[in-house]
């Protein structure tokens, strides 16, 4: 594979991640569970600690020096994270994770206080896909249950792609919102955002894109994507746990009612009733995820310095090698696209005759961390007739040698379980 860009100096990058020098069960750690959560470079660890140790205070609420420093840092983090995705400062809400971000949007529909575009009731439709993470499925199920709207979904092809043959029927005049994942967390599939957005525009549906797996792994420009909402989560993109984000096209947040009530999201509070602040504050009730936002901004700075196109290219190389390697192991079946075309770096597979739990546990004994289970996407497992899968997912700090270690490890696992 030829790269348009100079390749990453992965060894240098690895030195930034303390955990990568750990041993697990007597072997060097091979961390291939990045789609579940990523590790943090010292730059992020230091930003978090330095802020907490020397500049921390509550924000938006004081005139004293520390409170100003903390407010500055928090709002600068908002600018940085928004810019990382091609958005602007006041288009971005910090949440605790991507899940809260989806719930915030779903909670606005069918709410009497919301603008007209959020009206939803019996006869209306919400459309998702069969490859959604539970976090972009269950909130919509709950919404339909609450409002009487109908949930519909795109089925999947045998190759692990969205089956778009019924596009016009599934996204129709009754569709009020189309929510789908940018890059599937189990299948690794990268979905054709443009096709889906174009159809949504024809029928006037709002579009929420779940970018939990795209923000970490590819260059993203929310305005260019043309979606209305974009959610992502800090811990998968080198940031701390406890911070996620909701980006919204200008104007939408202001038409949405608050999801939670409390401090900071208000304008005038009387005992009997209150008025609410503008977005983004309206959606950040209570003390926000201050330190976590600062940490996430440091993560975005790190990724920007590396270059998201180089991250994507590097992962493309690893994914190609992984798919190739898996092909050499008899009895291994990849669930999801088996080429690098329009796919990310999360690769799910099953090993004939060995339960995914046992695959994962046995790999762990070799120091290799993969995730096993339904990956919060149980319907996908059902679709492909497996109770669970093992999933290897790489990130900027993984090496080709680690891919080889996994492939070799799988041979040993097979040997052990067929003994």
């Amino acid at each position, binding site marked *: 594979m030829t790269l348009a860009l100079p390749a990453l100096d992965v060894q240098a990058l690895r030195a930034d991640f303390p955990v990568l020098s750990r041993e697990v069960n007597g072997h060097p750690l091979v961390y291939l569970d990045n789609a579940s959560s990523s590790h943090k470079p010292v730059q992020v660890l230091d930003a978090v600690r330095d802020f907490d140790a020397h500049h921390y205070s509550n924000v938006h609420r004081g005139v004293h020096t520390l409170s100003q420093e903390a407010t500055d840092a928090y709002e600068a983090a908002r600018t940085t994270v928004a810019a990382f995705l091609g958005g602007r400062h006041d288009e971005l809400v910090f949440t605790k994770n991507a899940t809260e971000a989806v719930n915030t949007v779903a909670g606005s529909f069918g709410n009497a206080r919301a603008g007209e575009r959020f009206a939803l009731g019996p006869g209306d439709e919400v459309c998702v896909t069969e490859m959604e993470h539970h976090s972009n499925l269950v909130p919509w199920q709950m919404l339909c249950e609450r409002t009487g709207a109908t949930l519909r979904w795109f089925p999947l092809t045998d190759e692990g792609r969205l089956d778009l043959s019924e596009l016009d029927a599934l996204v129709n005049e009754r569709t009020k919102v189309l929510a789908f994942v940018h890059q599937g967390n189990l299948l690794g599939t990268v979905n054709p955002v443009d096709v889906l957005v174009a159809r949504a525009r024809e029928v006037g549906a709002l579009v929420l894109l779940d970018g939990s797996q795209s923000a970490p792994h590819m260059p993203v420009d929310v305005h260019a994507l043309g979606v209305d909402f974009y959610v992502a989560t800090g811990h998968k993109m080198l940031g701390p746990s406890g911070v996620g984000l909701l980006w919204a096209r200008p104007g939408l947040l202001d038409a949405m009612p608050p999801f939670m009530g409390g401090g900071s999201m208000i304008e005038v509070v009387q005992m009997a009733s209150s008025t609410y602040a503008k977005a983004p504050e309206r959606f950040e009730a209570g003390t926000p995820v201050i330190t976590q936002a600062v940490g996430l901004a440091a993560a975005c700075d790190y990724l920007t310095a590396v270059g998201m196109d180089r991250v994507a290219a590097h992962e493309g190389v690893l994914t190609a090698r992984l798919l190739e390697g898996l092909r050499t192991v008899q009895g291994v079946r990849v669930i999801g696209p088996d080429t690098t075309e329009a796919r990310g770096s999360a690769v799910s597979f099953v090993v004939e005759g060995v*339960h*995914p*739990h*046992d695959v994962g*546990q*046995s790999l762990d*004994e*070799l120091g290799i961390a993969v995730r*096993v*289970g*339904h990956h919060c996407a*149980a319907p996908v*497992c059902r679709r492909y007739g497996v*109770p*669970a899968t093992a999933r290897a997912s790489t990130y900027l700090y993984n090496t080709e040698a680690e891919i080889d270690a996994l492939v070799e490890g799988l041979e*040993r*696992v097979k040997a*052990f*379980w067929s003994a």
Partner: protein
Amino acid sequence: MTGTDSLYQEIILDHYKNPHHKGLRDPYDVEVHHVNPTCGDEVTLRVQVRDGVVQDVSYDGQGCSISQASTSVMTDLVIGQPVPQALGRAEAFLALMQSRGTLEPDEDVLEDGIAFAGVSRYPARVKCALLGWMAWKDATAQAVGPSTTEETA
């Protein structure tokens, strides 16, 4: 990948590869279906109780080595036992699983079940080891409970 420290004791591997009492059998009083939502493992299990004794336990299902082997061991431990004794063994196994490696299992009570002591150090696998046991407890409670006759199949 085995060894005294490993999760995968020989006993466990033996039961996994050659499970005891597997396959659904008649007659039975109660049949239950249990699922481990975190991994999709499932078991269908039948219980027959006569005169206060666990007459038969039969099952089918899919799951990892731990859940399969544990269910196999369970059938050895409860079939032929008076219900109170069998429940006592279930409690002993549950206590072992929740011990996070701190309990010394009693071989007289748990027999092959002692091979699972190490599993308690792997919280993610404890649920696997308990799947069959929980299904059995559920089915047995239904079989001996006041509403037995209505609920049996």
